[in-house]
Structure formats: C-alpha cells, structure tokens
C-alpha cells in the first residue's frame, strides 16, 4: 500500500473531469506531463473573474479595472512567494514556457557575438532547442550539446569539459519531459557561473512536482507553464534576475510596455511591464495564482512523497510485463515513465489504451534527439500526478497486457 498523508478520494472530487468516461470506461488520465487537469477551485476563479470583474488592467480609473489589476498583481506575488523570488517585478507573465524561452533567446541576440558558445542538454524539449538554434543563426554563436548516458543522466564530466570562457549561456530542463530525469541543476548553475555564463532552467516539468527555491538556486532565468500545475493553458512565467531583465531589450512592442512614446523615440516601462506588451491573459494569471494556492494547501512536499511512491509502484508493476523496457532510469527521477514493448510500435499500444479509457502520450514527445539516441521511433509515456491512484496504475498495467496480447 502506498503510505500517504493525502486524502486522495477527497482530492479527486475536486477535479470534475476525473469522473467522466472515455470509450465507455472510467477515464484514467496519465498524460499529466502534457497538461494537468483543473480543480474546481481554479475553474471557479476563472468563472468569478468573468462574472464579477472582467476589465483591462493597469490603466483604468474605474473600479472594475482596479479590482482586476489588484487580483492580477496579487497572483504575481503568489508566484513570487511560491518560488521564493526576491522581487515581484522579476516575475514576467508570459503565455507559457515556450514564450518565456523565446523572450530570453531573442533578448540575447544583442548580447552575443560570433564564436560565443551556448550549451544545451541532450534531453531538451524542441522548444528549448529551436530558439537557441535560431539565436545562433542570428549571431554566429555556436550551439554545443551536453551529452547524456543510457540511463538518461547528463554526463557531468563532459559538461564541465565543454565549459570555457566562450560559454555565454547554458540551457537545461529541470526535469526531462520524455524521461523524467531530475537534472543536477545546482551543479550546472554553479559550474556555469564559475565561467561567467548565464543559466536558464526550463522548470515546466519540475514545477508540478517540486518547489524550486529560485534564490537559493541562484539561477538567472527559470520558466514555468501554469497548465502543467493545475492552472489554465496560455499562461506561464519567466523568472529573471533583475540585473538580467534590465540588460535584455524588450521582446515585443505595444501598449503597457512603454513609458513615453513620441515619433522620435519611445522609452520603455520599468520591469515587469517592459516585457508585458499588450493586454495579457489576465484571467489566466489570476487563475494561476489560485492553482498555486490549491497546490500549497495540499503541500508540495506531500505531493512529492505521494508521487514518489506512485512512480515506484508503477515502475515495479510495469517491469513485471515481459518484454517491457523503460527508457530513462536515472537514479533521481519523477513522475514520468517512458516505455516500449519489444516488437510493438508505441502508437499501437497508445491506440489500444485509448480504447480502454487510458490517456497516455505516444510519439517522440517533442524530444526527437532523445529518440534518436535510443534508436527508437518513440515511446509510450505515462505521466503521473498527485490525483492518480494505485488502482489506476493497475488499470494501466492490465491495459498494456491486453494491448500486448492483441498486438504481438
């Protein structure tokens, strides 16, 4: 039995979608690394915004605008507190991790020159590879890759050997979306800083499962998407140290981000508004704050403990299936199990599981270099959240056995 302090049945009742059926069977939702489900509390927060105080923020003199502005800024402070960020203006609202990364990559265009080097890890999501490739094309900088081993762990000796005076920036995910590896980011950050390089950590997959203390990490940039942590889609943050955000030029021009505009010259607004051009996802930002309240009420530590037990149980049960191989066996991993069954295409398994009401992801998970590394077309990925249960894992295991029997 899983030892837990969480009242799972009570928690599950908070998520209306978990009680629906798919293909005539109770939904077993195991695609949490793609997006998490939304508790009623967050849905209520969205509804009450549109019911009660929908207005544009930061510029109205009227009451609704003030209420919306206050709620939005309170959400920013909740995020600041959750990630232990020094100043609230170091929290930039974005549309999500991809937007956040592009904002930084674009900003570095003016800071890089030919021959500078950018290091990215071998286990990056495409959204953390392509913007840097584009940055290299614009600046003549060189992209170098931190290799990983067969367990799905970064080769830290190789990383240290790649670091040099030419290294300007290092990019790495905190947790790999395809393998679940928790990367040793403390080590990466301090080693990169020792050669004067900036570090951006993509926290999209880590934030739902652990609380990152950004001041203690001393990281320069950190990105998060709300929809992976019980919030709505289309909103996230970029954390940046004040000194870096001051150095970077604005990403998009528009309203909100200006201090003064004449046809001769525009001066930009202070942080965070410099990077928040146009009307933001106001409701999304507020609901993100509510999602953090929800998670903190349960407790991130309790969530992490519960999920650790869940993934151990799932790993053990899945490995008992003959011919099943798990990709990503790092000593330090969380909430993702990527697997294949010998001789069966992951797409086939995913299709059968869907018919059984089980939602998993199949394919390359936007991390094609990892699939090339293992010489496989893709994997079946089951990813867990604190609202999943041991019983659901049993359903998954039975489903995989059924698929194997049908497809072999």
């Amino acid at each position, binding site marked *: 039995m899983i030892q837990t302090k969480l009242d799972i049945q009570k928690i599950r009742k908070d998520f209306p979608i978990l009680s629906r059926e798919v*293909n005539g069977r109770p939904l077993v939702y195991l695609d949490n690394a793609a997006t998490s489900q939304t508790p009623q509390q967050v849905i209520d927060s969205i509804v009450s915004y549109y019911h009660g105080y929908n207005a544009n923020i930061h510029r109205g003199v009227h009451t609704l605008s003030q209420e919306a502005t206050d709620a939005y800024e309170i959400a920013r402070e909740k995020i600041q507190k959750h990630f232990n960020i020094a100043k609230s203006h170091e929290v930039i609202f974005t549309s999500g991790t991809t937007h956040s990364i592009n904002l930084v990559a674009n900003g570095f265009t003016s800071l890089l020159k030919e021959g500078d080097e950018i290091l990215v890890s071998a286990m990056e999501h495409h959204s953390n590879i392509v913007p840097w490739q584009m940055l290299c094309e614009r600046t003549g900088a060189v992209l170098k890759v931190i290799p990983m081993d067969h367990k799905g762990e970064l080769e830290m000796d190789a990383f240290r050997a790649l670091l040099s005076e030419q290294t300007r920036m290092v990019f790495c995910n905190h947790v790999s979306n395809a393998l679940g590896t928790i990367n040793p980011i403390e080590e990466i950050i301090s080693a990169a800083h020792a050669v004067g390089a900036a570090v951006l950590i993509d926290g999209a997959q880590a934030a739902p499962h652990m609380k990152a203390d950004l001041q203690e990490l001393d990281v320069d940039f950190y990105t998060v998407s709300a929809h992976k942590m019980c919030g709505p889609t289309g909103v996230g943050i970029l954390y940046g140290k004040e000194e870096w955000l001051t150095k970077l030029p604005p990403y998009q021009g528009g309203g909100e981000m200006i201090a003064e505009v004449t046809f001769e010259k525009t001066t930009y607004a202070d942080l965070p508004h410099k990077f928040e051009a146009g009307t933001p996802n106001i409701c999304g930002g507020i609901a993100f704050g509510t999602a953090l309240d929800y998670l903190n009420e349960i407790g991130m530590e309790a969530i992490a403990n519960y999920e650790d037990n869940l993934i151990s149980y799932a790993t053990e049960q899945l490995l008992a299936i003959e011919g099943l191989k798990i990709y990503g066996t790092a000593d330090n991993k969380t909430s993702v199990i990527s697997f294949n069954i010998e001789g*069966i*295409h992951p*797409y*086939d398994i995913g*299709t*059968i599981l869907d*018919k059984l009401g089980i939602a998993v992801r*199949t*394919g390359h998970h936007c991390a094609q270099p990892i699939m090339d590394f293992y010489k496989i*077309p*893709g994997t079946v990925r089951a990813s867990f959240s604190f609202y999943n249960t041991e019983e659901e894992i049993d359903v998954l295991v039975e489903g995989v056995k059924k698929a194997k029997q*049908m*497809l072999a």
Partner: protein
Amino acid sequence: MTITEIQDEIVDEFSMFDDWMQRYEYMIELGKSLPLIEEQYKTDDNIIKGCQSKVWVHAELDEDKLVFTADSDAIITKGIIAILIRAFSNQKPQDIIDANTEFIDEIGLKEHLSPTRANGLVSMVKQIKLYAVAYQTQLN
C-alpha cells in the same frame, strides 16, 4: 469488383463484430495480409506525412489500373492502410478519384477520420487520391 462493391463487402465483414476489440483484432489480421511495398520504394519520398507511425505507399500502373503496395512500422496503421488498399487497388485512376470514404465511418473507425488524429488516415486517403490524379493525367 467496383470500389463501392468492395467497400460494401468490408462493411459486411465488420458488421459481424460486436465490440471494438474484435474490430481491432480483425484490422490487425488484415494488416498482416497487406501487399507489401518493395524495399527499394521505402524511401523518404514515399513516406506519408502526418502519421505518428511511418507509412510508405507506392503506386504502379498495370495497364489502365492502379496497383498499390504499402507498409507501416505500426500494426494498427498497417491494418488501416490494408483496408484502404483493398478498396482502391486494381482500380482505374478516375474511379479512385471519384470514390468516397464513408465506409470507414460505417466500419466503426470514424475516430481515425479526424484530420487532427495523429495516425494520418486522412493523409493516406489524400496520398492515394493524389497518385490517382497523377496517373490519370498520364493516361490522358
């Protein structure tokens, strides 16, 4: 047999099954009987885009009829392409162009028809029709 007759035959066969599991098991069986593409045609040019699994389709004219061969690395995809090829292979290009694909819906595989579905059934149909258009032009 005409395309419509073959499609009706397929619909008849699938109507014998009570549940999805039997339908899928039959489709997997059909996949095993797929006329396989020759290795030399398994090129990147012949890969159908939009599929999570790899699908290769090759067409050749045999007098006035188009003959299809194909393969896939996923068995369910192979079953789907086998059903399509059974309906469209050994037919005149113009008949292929004119044919509809409603039978897919009737055999309970409607979910695979959505253009956003990652299996690319829609792309397969499109590719088969494109071959037909190309060869029809050649015949004219």
